[in-house]
């Protein structure tokens, strides 16, 4: 467990939130839990960055929110993806893949590769 925390590259948190929420409506706590589980504890997002990011994405109309009764019996704020959010997710995902492939290609270079 990476207790010291792992700093996500800037802008990555938005992409991860969009991706996790795309799997189904979730409240903030579940989004953090889901991210941690999916990344096998490598990504531990702090509340201090998670909630401002959620509100920012909602403000940009990439997410919409709804208060619904949750498993605890209390109402919780569930976030879901808007059509714009889905388009944004597609674009950001493609960009991320291109970037990681490019970085991977450079890191895989050995002496003698052209």
């Amino acid at each position: 467990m990476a207790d010291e925390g792992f700093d996500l590259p800037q802008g990555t948190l938005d992409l991860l939130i969009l991706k996790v929420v795309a799997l189904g409506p979730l409240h903030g706590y579940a989004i953090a839990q889901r991210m941690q589980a999916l990344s096998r504890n490598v990504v531990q997002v702090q509340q201090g960055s998670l909630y401002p990011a959620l509100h920012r994405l909602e403000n940009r109309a990439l997410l919409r929110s709804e208060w619904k009764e949750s498993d605890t019996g209390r109402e919780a704020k569930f976030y879901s993806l808007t059509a714009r959010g889905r388009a944004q997710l597609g674009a950001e995902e493609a960009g991320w893949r291109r970037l990681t492939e490019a970085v991977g290609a450079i890191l895989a270079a050995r002496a003698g590769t052209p």
Partner: protein
Amino acid sequence: MTWLGRLLRRGRVERELQAELQDHLERQVADYVAAGMTEAEARRRARIAFGGLEQTKEDCRDARGTRLVEDLAQDLRYGVRLLRRSPVFTTVAIASLALGIGANTAIFTLVDSLVLRSLPVHEPERLVRLQHGSWTNPIWEEIRNRQRQLGLAAAASSDTRFDLADGGEARFAQGLFVSGGFFEVVGASTRPACCARAEASSHTRLRNLVPSTA
């Protein structure tokens, strides 16, 4: 909620923010308790894990996008409160502003009508008025005879009152004695019929009365 909705229902937005963060904290506590911690220990750990609650709230408010207007409203309320606390200062400040703006408006109105707005005549920038002096008939004739150099010229008397009544009660009207060519100089669009005679005479002493709309 739309941007405007968030701005207008600020109280509700704030309550929801508090409820959302509180919900997160409670879930964390429940998870810690489920993992075997005591309630008190779980609560302590959850609070540490959460970090600065107020700082997070501030960052969420920033992310809301209504910050600018909210801050402006807050500053305005603060300003009004301060002004109310010192009524003498407020009165003096408002009075000086009112006087300043009033004086400015008055002077601008004057300058606008005198300088900026041109006369409703043909080629107003070429119109020259000669006044204050002894404009005797020989001088006028000199001027008129040099029209080739000076351009068109016309003479006019100072304001005079004319009696328009046929008899009985007097009906006065303001008017001018003008020379032939006057209407041509000012470029009056409607040329009264009587002017044909006036121009033909090109004489200074005319008695044609031309009703004017000016």
